[in-house]
């Protein structure tokens, strides 16, 4: 138990900070994922075949390729890509982007592919009559989206989004390969310096279980909130 003490003697405070880091990366990735879904869901539902194709390539490729490979692409390719863009603006110094941003982007793109599918499914399962009714009432496209599509979509999407959240939360463990000190990386460091991997990895497992358990409780509350009237 003294291994988990706070302060210089134990790993308690380090692991606590690492847990906060995991939460921060997960939330950031999820939000980046939502922005990707915000772009690709309309493309998926578009009337134009070419736009559908673009969105389908995104979701198919990302969901068919291992998360770790995507992370390596961003880890090794991220600063190269940024430097390439910077060089077009005449900036030729070496740029290093930090592990938090690279990691959140890599996981965000993966999470976005799953979110896109969830939102697409949710919008498609809204009764078509609703849109017709909105048109008849003379609602603008904007009002139709915010007052009719969005609230219903959220209600339908929440159960599946909670799955996406679980996947995203667990995927953040893979960012540890880039050196970002989240739960997995901190456990690796602690296991290495105390030579007690069994204890620290098991404790990491407990932390992840706790996070998934608590977030499920929270999401269930949201689900109840958004299902009022049903």
């Amino acid at each position: 138990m003294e291994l988990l003490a706070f302060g210089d003697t134990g790993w308690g405070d380090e692991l606590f900070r690492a847990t906060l880091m995991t939460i921060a990366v997960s939330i950031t990735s999820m939000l980046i994922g939502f922005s990707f879904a915000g772009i690709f869901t309309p493309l998926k539902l578009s009337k134009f075949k070419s736009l559908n194709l673009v969105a389908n390539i995104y979701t198919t490729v990302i969901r068919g390729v291992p998360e770790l490979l995507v992370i390596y692409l961003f880890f090794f390719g991220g600063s190269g890509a940024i430097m390439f863009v910077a060089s077009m603006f005449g900036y030729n110094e070496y740029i290093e982007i930090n592990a938090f941003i690279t990691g959140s982007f890599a996981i965000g793109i993966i999470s976005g592919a799953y979110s896109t599918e969830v939102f697409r499914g949710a919008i498609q399962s809204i009764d078509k009559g609703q849109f017709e009714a909105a048109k008849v009432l003379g609602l603008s496209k904007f009002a139709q989206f915010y007052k009719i599509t969005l609230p219903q979509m959220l209600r339908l999407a929440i159960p599946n989004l909670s799955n996406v959240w679980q996947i995203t939360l667990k995927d953040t463990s893979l960012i540890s390969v880039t050196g970002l000190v989240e739960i997995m990386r901190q456990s690796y460091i602690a296991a290495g310096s105390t030579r007690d991997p069994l204890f620290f990895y098991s404790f990491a497992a407990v932390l992840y279980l706790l996070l998934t358990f608590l977030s499920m409780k929270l999401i269930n509350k949201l689900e109840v909130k958004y299902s009022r009237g049903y």
Partner: protein
Amino acid sequence: MDFELMINSFPKLLNAAVITLKLLSVSLIVGLFIGLLFAILRLNKNVFINKFAYGYSYIFRGTPLLVQIFIIYFGLGQIEYLRSTFLWVILKEPYWCAIIAFALNTGAYTSEILRSAFQTIKPGIIEAGQSLGISSKIIFYKIQIPIAIRQSLPAYGNEIILMMKGTSLASTVTLMDLTGVAKYIISTTFKPIEVFIVAGGIYLFMTFIIHNVIKFLEKKYSFN
């Protein structure tokens, strides 16, 4: 774009894909048995057996696969007692550790898929079997299991693809699977995009094949 690198790395990556497929197939076969066993335990009326099976699937589905591999590969080797048993022959090999972790992981998901399939079987079908005087053992093996397998094909197809992606974690315990070799080539050539395209293409090709095989099986065993 460095096309020469892409062409040169293709055979290396293809060789590594064979290891990925080996890891995948062995884990899936073992995982299927584990999944079936725990699905049956979940349906048991005994609360303790039931809770035990639920706990297993909850823990393995609630923690990242990476933690599971690390516990088995780095953690179990720490137990002195294990080192003196025959199990050590298996547990010192990263290959077998990866397979144990994958099989236990996919077993947890498979048990959930099969459990829900068992639960959606219409009671009328079982009652029909009973009224024909078929023993409950035969009802289980000849009626419930085939129907459950058919029911769970689409979800299981997804699980196979998820597991194929999961095998990439074998590279974290020194195995040179497709992702492991891809990472090695990236870190020696610093050409991540080219290698990603080739390795990702191989993964997508495997996904495509798995997807179509499952689709074919679904059609073949459809009820109509």
